[in-house]
């Protein structure tokens, strides 16, 4: 039986992610919530979830030796980053006065601009960007199987990734600005929204991940 490790770095609520994976796995995968680098190395696939402040996240990751383990496993096996698990792949985040990330991909994590306006409206958009918004895949990918373009997923964030290499973009979303809501390269797929909280489309994406061989 394949093992999926849900990365536990001691700060966020991982139950939702683990429960959603168990639900779609239908008993065919072992879902292991762990913060041990050797579990990461042994896993067949990895989910890196996260909410909250990226500074705390990176501090925990580094203190637990998970940064090295992540850099080792990232190009080697199917990986799904969620929210902070996406943002931490970049070089640097504006959040908290500036926080270095894992630097797997060149680019930054930036905040939604102040005075963000809805299209053709006087209304100022609220930050955090919270709720169900549309995700537009940049192209075909096995993780989008069965998910229609423009499908809504649940978001909650104030910062988004701006990868330097446009070819990393796997999906876009509009919220006053157009931002990268998913990126993909090789066996890495990472999303800004929360598939574990996005009902059917989210569960479908998680199921696609569990069956993915890591090739785009």
């Amino acid at each position, binding site marked *: 039986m394949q093992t999926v490790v849900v990365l536990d770095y001691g700060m966020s609520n991982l*139950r939702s992610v683990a429960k959603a994976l168990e639900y779609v796995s239908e008993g065919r995968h072992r879902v292991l919530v762990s913060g041990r680098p050797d579990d990461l190395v042994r896993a067949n696939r990895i989910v890196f979830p996260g909410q909250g402040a990226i500074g705390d996240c990176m501090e925990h990751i580094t203190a637990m030796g998970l940064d090295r383990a992540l850099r080792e496993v990232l190009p080697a096996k199917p990986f799904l980053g969620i929210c902070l698990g996406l943002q931490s792949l970049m070089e640097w985040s504006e959040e908290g006065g500036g926080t270095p990330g894992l630097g797997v991909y060149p680019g930054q994590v930036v905040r939604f601009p102040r005075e963000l306006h809805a299209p053709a409206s006087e209304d100022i958009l609220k930050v955090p960007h919270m709720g169900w918004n549309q995700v537009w895949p940049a192209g075909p990918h096995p993780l989008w199987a069965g998910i229609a373009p423009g499908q809504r997923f*649940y978001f909650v964030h104030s910062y988004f990734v701006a990868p330097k290499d446009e070819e990393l973009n796997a999906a876009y979303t509009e919220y006053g600005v157009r931002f990268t809501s998913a990126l993909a390269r090789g066996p890495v797929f990472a999303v800004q929204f929360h598939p574990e909280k996005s009902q059917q489309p989210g569960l479908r994406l998680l199921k696609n991940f569990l069956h993915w061989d890591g090739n785009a």
Partner: protein
Amino acid sequence: MMGLAKRIIPCLDVEAGRVVKGVKFVDIRDAGDPVETARRYDQQGADEIAFLDITASRDARDTLAHVVEAVAAQVFIPLTVGGGIRSIEDIRRLLNAGADKVSINTAAVRDPELVRQASDRFGSQCIVVAIDARASAAASEGSPRWEVFTHGGRKATGIDARAWAAKMEQLGAGEILLTSMDRDGTRDGFDLALTREIAEAVGIPVIASGGVGNLDHLVDGVCIGKADALLAASIFHFGLYTVRAAKERMREAGIEVRL
């Protein structure tokens, strides 16, 4: 059309682990079962589900964490839990059980620093500050137009609701759940002036609550009240309207919804 949808959030009152206050679906086996009720709303297209714990006894409160745990294992949309939350430990327990957000009301008034500590510790995204407000009887220059109440609307605080909402944002609240105590239970519609006042005073999302009696009230809450999300209980519980019907009505009115 592209963009963020306005949210519909059914709210369930929970007492000692059971849904109370008249959830009446015609075809539900056990209307008191939080899992079954939540699942029903999920199927209808609810964008989130809120649980309000009205258990009087502190001892019986632990059952709430079990309720959240059971629901979170089967319903994959955001869950907000409120009612009687007093400490960082209370919040931690509920988040660990599977709640995505907790709402803090009386405890925030008693100790505003709790909001700061909680958002530092768990992130703003999971800290909702619930504000129960009432129009001031003798509104005059300098006195609040809407006053914050605590203890389920029984206790006046003398605090101006607008200033309070701004302060809560500053301390790290990720969202405001605003209930008009004047309208709660009346079915006369949201207090639109209050909703708009608060929605325009803060940069974080505002959930309007209190007074929904029909689907046009929901439309008004967004179009006139400028709410980002709408919380309702009785119109859904009694089977008067489904969440889907509510959203269809909103979409007809030009509001972006998830359907």
